């Protein structure tokens, strides 16, 4: 099987077939009776989609690349610009890191996952292919709702594209959780680039987990950072400003009020973590 054939098989069974990447979600869905009308599973493991490639614009990471393989690819894992992604792939235990894939994590479109938040903070793109054409989808337009992505019938996400960032860029991801096995109550991804005077010239703040069906970007927080030195007051103002863009929900993991309070705290901590990285490496 190749990608073209997988795409045709998927398109032909629209709504009745599902792509399997690492497979860690399929059993969970089956156990909860959520496989619905799915009768066919299409496994992509032999299509050559496990790779990390460096090119002048950045890195291309094959959709079937596991978290552990990302972690072991030094040009990415030692670069503080991609710190958010490394934080995210480091969260689960070895048993998950050896199986879960970047493409699977993104295409599950679960706002409680950590890797998609990190990749959104990195302005990553997804390459989607069918048997006839391909296109690039920016991640902030990729997530439509829980379990729903911008992929059309027959489209397969083949790789995640990371761009290169200017020097003095760092990113971070923090997860707030009830225990190590649970999904996030809230998670925050940040990316900052500082100029020579240590003013913030570019930033991205993304909040996920219980703040809606898809991760939320916070332009209000980013505006507060713009052209400012990231001292305590600036970071506090930006963290406070996330609440202009984020509208948390209440569920069994936490109330909306708790999430609002924690959104400020976690954004502040995540920004400080990124800042510490610009100042002193990983």
């Amino acid at each position, binding site marked *: 099987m190749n990608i073209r054939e997988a795409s045709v098989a998927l398109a032909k069974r629209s709504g009745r077939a599902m792509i399997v990447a690492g497979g860690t979600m399929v*059993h969970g869905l089956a*156990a909860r009776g959520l496989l619905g009308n799915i009768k066919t*599973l299409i496994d992509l493991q032999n299509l050559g989609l496990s790779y990390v490639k460096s090119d002048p614009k950045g890195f291309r990471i094959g959709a079937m690349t596991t978290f552990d393989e990302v972690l072991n690819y030094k040009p990415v894992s030692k670069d503080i610009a991609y710190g958010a992604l490394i934080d995210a792939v480091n969260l*689960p*235990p*070895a*048993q998950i890191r050896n199986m879960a894939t970047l493409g699977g994590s993104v295409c599950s479109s679960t706002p409680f996952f950590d890797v998609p938040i990190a990749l959104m903070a990195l302005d990553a793109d997804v390459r989607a292919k069918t048997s006839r054409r391909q296109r690039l989808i920016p991640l902030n337009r990729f997530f439509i709702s829980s379990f729903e992505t911008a992929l059309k019938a027959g489209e397969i996400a083949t790789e995640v594209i990371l761009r290169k960032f200017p020097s003095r860029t760092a990113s971070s991801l923090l997860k707030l959780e009830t225990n190590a096995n649970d999904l996030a109550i809230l998670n925050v991804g940040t990316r900052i680039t500082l100029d020579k005077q240590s003013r913030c010239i570019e930033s991205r703040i993304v909040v996920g987990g219980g703040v809606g069906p898809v991760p939320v970007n916070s332009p209000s927080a980013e505006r507060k950072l713009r052209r400012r030195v990231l001292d305590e007051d600036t970071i506090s103002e930006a963290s406070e400003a996330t609440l202009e863009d984020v509208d948390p929900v209440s569920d069994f993991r936490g109330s909306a009020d708790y999430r609002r309070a924690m959104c400020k705290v976690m954004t502040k901590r995540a920004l400080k973590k990124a800042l510490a990285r610009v100042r002193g490496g990983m």
Partner: protein
Amino acid sequence: MALMTLRVNGEARDVSVQPHHSLLRVLREELGLLGSKRGCDTGGCGCCSVLVDDKVVYSCMVLAMSCVKKKITTVEGLQVNGALDPLQEAFVRAGAIQCGYCIPGFIMASKDLMRRRRFPSEKEIAQSIAGNLCRCTGYQKIIEAIEMAVSNSNGAG
């Protein structure tokens, strides 16, 4: 149902499975290998840990069909001609086993660590078993057992 051949503990085994059946289910119910335990069945407790191509995974979350042509190792496959694996030996000697239910999972996770790191630090040992729960021992004896196995294997090499 689909017929497939799985390579488990060095033997080719023919099994018939549904596409969504987990590797754990096939190991226990088709092949009678009961060392890997069904705990949470959702990838949290680690009792079902096995090696696939020498890497530790939760067998409850891996689809059996995804393991065709791969090398599957369960705790039953560790002993050689009746002699326990150094890790198994160390778990017994360190008194790391109480009720024992979680132990195959811990041993498989430690096996993966010892493949990756010849001289793991205590922190690395603790991190390597982060995906395994034990409700009896409080982990200290388990960590001591892994340290014992590491130093024994380095002493022998």
